[in-house]
């Protein structure tokens, strides 16, 4: 009988880890607190820098789940370490014995309302990157009403000692530039501004995306 490996968190990291662990001959068991697998990826519309649809990436990941078990809408109650195994008790009443436990719980989005000066949750037309991704997915958000001027404020909650985050998020510059392109596609007459401390384009082809935008052309690889 194959040994279990419990993976806490059913986002893309957890799913990809499960596939790899399965290939090593174990039985991965994914534990996901949400109703479905996918994590933040399922909430996103398109991904930088190429503009690939997040759902396509997720579908690719989920297309090869043979030999992987998963529980959704479930949380961990307790983890007990025995001599050479772990016993994980779940909120659905099931207990799992596992050779190892892998934590792939991902990240929590910064709570934008903590930066009170931007008025998220106070002013009608202040939204976050995540809100905008949901809008791109379903085109429904009462806060977005044929905007004429749009500003992206970078680094909110990042590189910010008062927010307890001295580090750069490494993703919000690329996200904001990508979204600036997308919203410009949706509202060609709108003027889009990006307000930043520095632009930090980590990763392959991120800089290409930025340079294309600087030259006032949308990256060709962003699908309409």
């Amino acid at each position, binding site marked *: 009988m194959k040994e279990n490996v419990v993976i806490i968190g059913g986002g893309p990291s957890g799913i990809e880890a499960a596939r790899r662990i399965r290939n090593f001959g174990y039985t991965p068991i994914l534990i996901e607190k949400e109703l479905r697998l996918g994590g933040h990826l399922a909430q996103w519309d398109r991904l930088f820098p190429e503009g690939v649809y997040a759902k396509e990436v997720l579908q690719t990941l989920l297309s090869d789940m043979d030999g992987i078990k998963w529980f959704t809408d479930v949380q961990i109650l307790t983890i007990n370490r025995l001599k050479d195994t772990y016993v994980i008790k779940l909120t659905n009443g099931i207990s799992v014995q596992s050779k190892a436990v892998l934590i792939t719980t991902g990240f929590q989005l910064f709570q934008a*309302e903590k930066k*009170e000066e931007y*008025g998220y949750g106070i002013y*009608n037309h202040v939204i976050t990157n995540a809100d905008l991704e949901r809008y791109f997915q379903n085109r429904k958000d009462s806060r977005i009403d044929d905007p004429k001027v749009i500003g992206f404020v970078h680094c909110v909650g990042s590189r910010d000692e008062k927010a307890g985050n001295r580090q750069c998020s490494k993703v919000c510059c690329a996200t904001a530039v990508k979204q600036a392109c997308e919203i410009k596609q949706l509202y060609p007459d709108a003027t889009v501004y990006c307000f930043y401390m520095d632009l930090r384009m980590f990763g392959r082809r991120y800089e290409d995306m930025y340079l294309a935008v600087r030259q006032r052309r949308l990256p060709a690889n962003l699908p309409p």
Partner: protein
Amino acid sequence: MIFQGKQKIWSDYQKDIPDDHYFYVRSCIRQNFFPASEQTFLDIVHNRLGKDFYETPHHTTCGGIAYHGEAIPQETVMTIIARQFALMTESGYENYVCSCITSFGLYTETMDDWRNFPELEAKIREDLWKACRREFKVPKYLAHASDVIYKFRNEIAERAKFRLVNKETGEPLRVVEHIGCHYSKMFPSKGIGGAEYPYVLAGMIESWGGEVIDYPERRHCCGFGFRQYLVKANRGYSISNTYKKFESMEPYKPDMIITNCPGCPFFMDRWQYVIAEQTGKTYGENGYGIPVFTYEEVAGLVLGYNPWDLGLQIHQVAVEPLLDKIGIPYDKADKYKGKNGKLLRVPEYPMNIKCC
């Protein structure tokens, strides 16, 4: 505006304000700028609300202007503050209330520093003892005088003879609330409502019938900024700040401005005259400018005090159009009479901003 969002922030930033028994210290510059405000405050708390407020003629400046003007070091200002606390302790009080926002910020900063660096407090205690043989207790509660009026705003509303309402239309007056920078920008948790959406004046305005205006530069400095004005060569920065604020609030057509800082009402009032002289532009209705008040003056107005007893005749921007709008009676002939009934000198009229 998402009102629930503001309510959540307001509920996050509340502070304990004692019910009674306060040691009160005045501001240095308000005595000259708006001399009736503190007297009105004391009259309201003593005679209208029946509260115990004690003040002593032995208290001095907190040292804030010199400190923020970089003329004295922190240890000096802390020793001055320690002496003020000693006066409170000797008088048998533990609730400290100051009239000045700069003082409030400085007391808050000092008490916070002492909490974090007890050795600094020990040194200041030693310095105070060497200087004047006094000892002190740190106040149990520190409040700004506007916190006190905020706490009793509904009691004042119950006793009000007038409300911040246009008597002709029945519509609430549109009011800009301007908070002194040192009230909560340094220590948001010490101010009612925090730093970004302070509620201390907004609460008064709502209780007294007005409507608070939100505008882009609502948290911008009034223009005083200490070194912006105290250093004469920097005064262009001072008026530029004020100009920026008025340009920002103008589209929202405010009827009046309420402030809780010594410098803010002075600069927002006087610089309107200078802007009008320099550019010909005025911001209020019919060329009069937007009247600027201290919260004590507004409390006095709604309670039915005589506007000239509140010192409104020394404002640069004429207050009469607003008094007429609310329906507050006043005698024009008394405007420039002293307390003894004798006519004081009548000021010259400015060129561009209309006065009554």
